[in-house]
């Protein structure tokens, strides 16, 4: 019974983090049309900024969320304005742009990862944070706190998309950029904001992950793969789909890891391939 509860809670927590990361990728690909292979690198950047600020100025990791999120968001805005916007302007069609953006983000992956390696080295790092257990339930406190944060962030982000003027503009631009422009939306700003928000979510997820697991400058690509599986699972470009898909994959991950940790990655790929063959449009796809 306890084992079942642990699998479920861990799955929910992982799922929530996967959902954050995947919603980020979905914004970048579904709206800004950048297939960002370097997405996971910004999780690593968020994790290391948090780790570094804890070590240097003893900043509480939960407080550093407030810094990593916006910092990585601004990196995203700058990247979009300097790199991806230019690629878009020089591409004859969106399909060409998608291809070019993927190649460019491959380059970005290596640049970010190697810069991080120069700054932080390639060792496994980690720290202890709230890892006392809640006595009655025997669940580490940091997991519960992270789960709480993920839920709050998820709800806040959902409300942002559903209720605000900018959130609506993002959803409209995801459906039809040209029509959104006719409504008065400055499409290039919205695309840059989507790219930045996507990266910001990855940065925040990185901060949270660093409170739970050991980190290393090479962790990024694994999360990029997870996010891609989730985005396909949920349906390309669907934000709700990415949220649902993230939670499903988190539950799969914790279940498989409980029985046989070495099979977790394989389970992701099996799901990915089965989905591509059986339901290529995903859960919420059209």
């Amino acid at each position, binding site marked *: 019974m306890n084992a079942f509860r642990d699998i479920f809670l861990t799955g929910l927590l992982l799922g929530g983090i996967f959902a954050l990361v995947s919603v980020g990728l979905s914004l970048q690909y579904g709206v800004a049309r950048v297939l960002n292979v370097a997405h996971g690198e910004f999780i690593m950047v968020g994790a290391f900024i948090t780790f570094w600020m804890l070590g240097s100025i003893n900043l509480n990791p939960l407080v550093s969320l407030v810094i990593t999120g916006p910092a990585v968001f601004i990196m995203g805005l700058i990247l979009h304005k300097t790199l991806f916007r230019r690629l878009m302007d020089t591409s004859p069609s969106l399909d060409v742009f998608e291809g070019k953006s993927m190649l460019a983000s491959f380059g970005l992956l290596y640049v970010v990862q190697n810069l991080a390696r120069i700054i932080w080295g390639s060792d496994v790092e980690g720290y202890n944070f709230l890892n006392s257990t809640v006595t009655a339930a025997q669940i580490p406190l940091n997991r519960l706190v992270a789960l709480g944060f993920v839920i709050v962030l998820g709800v806040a982000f959902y409300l942002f998309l559903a209720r605000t003027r900018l959130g609506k503009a993002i*959803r*409209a631009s995801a*459906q039809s950029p*040209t029509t*959104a422009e*006719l*409504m*008065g939306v*400055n*499409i290039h700003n919205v695309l840059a904001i989507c790219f930045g928000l996507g990266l910001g979510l990855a940065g925040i997820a990185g901060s949270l992950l660093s409170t739970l697991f050991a980190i290393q400058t090479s962790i990024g690509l694994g999360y990029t793969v997870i996010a891609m599986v989730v985005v396909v699972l949920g349906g390309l470009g669907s934000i709700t789909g990415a949220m649902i898909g993230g939670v499903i994959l988190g539950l799969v991950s914790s279940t498989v890891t409980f029985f046989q940790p070495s099979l977790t990655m394989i389970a992701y790929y099996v799901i990915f391939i089965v989905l591509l063959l059986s339901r290529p449009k995903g859960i919420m796809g059209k």
Partner: protein
Amino acid sequence: MLEIDGLSASYGKVQVLWDVSLRVDEGEFVALVGANGAGKTTLLNAVSGVMRPGSGSIAFMGNKVDGFAPNQIVDLGLSHIPESRQVFTDMSVRENLEMGAYPIRAWKSRRNTMKRVFELFPRLEERAGQLARSLSGGEQQMLAMGRGLMSLPKMCMIDEPSNGLAPLVVRDIFRVLKSLHEEGITVLLVEQNVRQTLAVADRAYVLENGHNVLEGPCCDLAQSEHVRKAYLGQ
């Protein structure tokens, strides 16, 4: 109000518009008619900034606007209601209307504007909470027009509102167009439904293969030999 002079435009190597000129005065109801592929939609896209014209000039309320981004054109008060409706299918009717009020100056008064739009299209109010995808073709066209009014435009360019709709619905659409114009909005209507268009507009331009061929008051055009043969089947 809108002055287009010597406009040429191409998609890649295919030239679609050749030296087209057109003028719409404030308060006028002007129609642009012509067959499929004559370049009517391209002309509207060039005006609203969706595509860049090759040469020629476009002025709106005395300001040169060619090369402006679409959001700048909307901000100036020129609303383009696009071909085949293009409603945001995954958003509710109300959210679609809110998107129409995206420019800041319109956003602030969106609730009042929406009330006016609901008076014009009572069906939209009944369906305000529904997803736009669940509307019929006629209702989607009404939504597209209502959405285009939400930015509080001085002038509307409406692209083929009657396309694909049943005759009874088309009659409704034309009635609404007329009342829009009576409310003081300048209208440039693009249509293939020449008979009904000439009945509601003040003046019309005929576009063929990307060239201006005829222009004049609608009553004169309706009598012209060419228009009667080519467009009215007489």
